[in-house]
């Protein structure tokens, strides 16, 4: 019996730990929402690789998995209400206030697992359709559930989806074509600034968002080609460094394009040689220098999209934004999926595997590589345009190197070249960064100030604990650690792509270098 319990806990600990953490941090009805989401996931995963003869069997397997998760949730909500809340300085709840949410979480999780489990019993093509419909249903009603449960996760969900688009785009360059791009945030910035310039008072242009969106994508794609052109001869780490340099230059440019004035150089040079500065022919910004990007202060406000029945999208109402970015993600997913299987996608795979062999097979390296950069940039152009309209303001500091690395982190965590993995990586990293870390900081602060600090006599130590133990200041550390650990332990990512996995494991042992083999 005890061994069985240990086995069950071991098999469900990842999802269970996430669920527990969610409840402990957020409390309230968050357990029900996370139970719904994770219960579906647990039920789906439990049915993978099993033969499911009838919906009944499937429902039983799925509900089982959901129930185990539900028990985690139930225990966690008891823990949260009775132990964590008083320790972190909030008022403790009575058992009757905790029980409803705990029991509901348990029920919802079991039900969700059962439903998805029973769908897995369908024959093959319809099974996938049913799973997709379930997924679509979850995504569509998520904002309403979120509203009812008062978890207010929609804003974070929008940010997560923005980064999912970016990660999907980077996956084209890095995962499909094998070109490591460390300056990806530059394209994001270019998309955002294009939108900012074309629909704000900066240049007195106020174009419709729906016109600007494709323009931003095209401009980003052109920037991708411009970046790609000098890097065609480079590979591996040199390419990475050039893209990094590009990624550093772009924010500097946007920061400093505040006084643009262009003179015709030859006439100006003659003018200054003969002491007649008025000879210079001025081309742009003659009366007063053009202020394109407004420097550090950024462009603010930026026009918002509007639709016939919805009206102008308001910042207080998250629903239209959520569905817009969801539509963009679905569109990008579909496009990238088709691209990967196209002739171009196959030539990317060939280039990734062996450039020389690919060119010997008649693949046009220049075209394929440039298109890889351009396609990757296109989707970040979408992301940037949406971001600019959604935040309604853009600053150069938003697009620094750490953004590129965070996106790279998502792609690597999820699995290079695998779209499901990349989406999962994006969700995990953004949820951890934007949702869990700030909330953890809040709870930890409450916990420290009520339960720990009064018991510490040493003022130095007290001061240290009060100021230095801030999880939001540890985010770079966590990203870095993710990269290092993933590279060493599981370089193919959480959901690996079959080709990449074969490359990283098993192959290539026989032709290792002598010194390398010895150092193992």
């Amino acid at each position, binding site marked *: 019996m005890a061994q069985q319990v240990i086995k069950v806990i071991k098999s469900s600990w990842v999802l269970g730990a996430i669920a527990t953490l969610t409840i402990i941090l957020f409390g309230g009805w968050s357990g029900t929402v996370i139970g719904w989401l994770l219960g579906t996931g647990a039920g789906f995963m439990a049915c993978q690789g099993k033969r499911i003869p009838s919906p009944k069997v499937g429902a039983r397997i799925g509900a089982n998995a959901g129930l185990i998760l539900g028990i985690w949730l139930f225990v966690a909500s008891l823990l949260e209400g009775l132990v964590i809340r008083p320790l972190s300085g909030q008022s403790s709840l009575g058992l009757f206030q905790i029980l409803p949410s705990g029991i509901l979480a348990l029920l919802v999780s079991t039900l969700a697992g059962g439903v998805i489990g029973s769908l897995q019993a369908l024959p093959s093509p319809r099974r996938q359709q049913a799973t997709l419909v379930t997924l679509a249903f979850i995504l569509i009603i998520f904002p309403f559930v979120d509203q009812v449960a008062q978890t207010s996760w929609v804003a974070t969900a929008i940010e997560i989806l923005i980064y999912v688009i970016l990660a999907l785009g980077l996956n084209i360059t890095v995962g499909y074509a094998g070109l490591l791009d460390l300056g990806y945030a530059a394209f994001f910035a270019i998309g955002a600034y294009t939108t900012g310039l074309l629909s704000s008072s900066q240049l007195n242009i106020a174009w419709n968002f729906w016109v600007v969106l494709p323009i931003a994508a095209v401009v980003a794609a052109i920037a991708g080609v411009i970046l790609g052109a*000098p890097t*065609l*001869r*480079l*590979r*591996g*780490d*040199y*390419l990475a*460094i*050039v893209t990094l*340099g590009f990624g*550093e*230059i772009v924010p*500097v*440019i946007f*920061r*400093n394009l505040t006084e*643009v*004035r*262009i003179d*015709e*150089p*030859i006439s*100006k*040079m003659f003018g*200054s*040689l003969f002491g007649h500065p008025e000879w210079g022919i001025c081309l742009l910004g003659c009366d007063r220098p053009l202020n394109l990007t407004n420097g550090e202060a950024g462009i603010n406000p930026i026009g918002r999209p509007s639709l016939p029945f919805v009206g102008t999208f308001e910042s207080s109402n998250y629903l239209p934004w959520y569905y817009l970015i969801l539509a963009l993600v679905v569109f990008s997913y579909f496009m990238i999926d088709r691209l990967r299987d196209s002739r171009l996608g196959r030539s990317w795979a060939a280039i990734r595997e062996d450039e020389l062999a690919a*060119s*010997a097979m008649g693949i*046009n*390296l*220049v075209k394929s590589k440039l298109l890889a950069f351009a396609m990757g940039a296109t989707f970040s152009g979408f992301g940037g345009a949406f971001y600019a309209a959604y935040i309604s303001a853009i600053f150069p500091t938003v697009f620094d*190197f750490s953004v590129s*690395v965070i996106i*790279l982190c998502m792609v*690597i965590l999820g699995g290079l070249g695998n779209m499901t993995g990349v989406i999962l990586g994006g969700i995990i990293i953004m949820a951890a960064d934007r949702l869990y870390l700030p909330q953890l900081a809040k709870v930890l602060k409450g916990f420290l100030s009520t339960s720990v600090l009064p018991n510490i006599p040493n003022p*130095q130590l007290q*001061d*240290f604990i009060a*100021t*230095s133990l801030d999880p939001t*200041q540890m985010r*770079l*550390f966590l990203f*870095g650690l993710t*990269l290092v650990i993933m*590279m*060493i332990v599981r*370089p193919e990512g959480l959901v690996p792509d079959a080709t990449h996995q074969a*490359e*990283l494991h098993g192959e*290539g042992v026989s032709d*290792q*270098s*002598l*010194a*390398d083999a*010895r*150092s193992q």
Partner: protein
Amino acid sequence: MSKESVTPRPAFLPAHTKYGRGIQRVRQMKRWRKPLLYLVFAYIVLLIGPIAGFDLPRIVVDITRNPEILIQQLLVGLVNGAIIAIISLGYTLVYGIIELINFAHGDLYMLGAFGALTVIGAFGVQDEAPLQTAIPAMLVALIIATVLCGGINVLTERYAYRPLRNAPRLAPLISAIGVSFIFQNVGLFWGGLKSFFPSMGTNAAAPKSFPDLLPRINVLKALGIQSNINFTTKDLIVLVVAIALMVGLHLFVQKTRLGKAMRATAQNRDAALIMGIDVDRIIALTFLIGGALAGAAGLLVGLYNNTIVFTMGFTAGLRAFTAAVLGGIGNIVGAMLGGVLIGLLSSLSDQYLSSRWTDAWVFAVLVVILAFRPGGLLGENVQEKV
């Protein structure tokens, strides 16, 4: 060797590929077309350049009006370049031996500066302290910063890079980026330890002031030369220490047994192993030396600029890497040359172009060098082995 590590440097593709034919077409362009292409390029640079401060007429006027400023900026650039050169040696040593761009090196140097500040703060010396109290503090800070950075670098190599030595080439690079982020966060954390180290100031992320300990006696005045150029003993000391470190390293690599082992390992790891060289130890030693140099550079920068901040490692690291690439990565003399050139470029850009655009100019040099002469000034372009 795995197929990724066969190609140490980007190389020209053979001419029979479609891409190679494109290059040939450029080479076979009609004779008058090539200069025309360059002219058009130069015209565009002159047209767009003034936005980023590259305004030739104004620069010429500035220089003729006051040539002393030019000399002053050259001196500043020389000193800064010497510091950059020390950092870029760390990149070039590591790249030379295991072909890894050690991305974390810049942040390691930042940690060295923080270590030095902590030690000097513990000695309790303040701005312009008398030399007899400042010198022991600086010496102890030098020793601790070098040992700290060398140790961290060896540990990093052992746990973050060595397990990846057989992996595809991008794996250790990504791991190095991760380590760089970890170091940066450690710097931020360290800067927040005001309760233990009062020298860290109140705000964790804010720049820390580094005590100004080096004497400022104008060397030119002391030599009896009258001019407005300001070249103090402070500049001289930093320059001398930097040159001493570089010469020492050069002699170590060229003249000693261990240096010979390092060069052998860099040339061919397998052959070195057959000759009885402990390759792992030599690689660890390389990281130790590179880290120690980074620690020394951290102290020098602190003493020279008198302000350090936890993000300084990233930019400085990129500049140093640019310097290493400019000189020809893997080439020790090249790294020194590249460091000085980048130092000069940035100080001249600060004065004559626009200090806001200096970073862009430096990275533009990086992009241009990598795109057109990836071997660098002193390096050679290696043909791809198939």
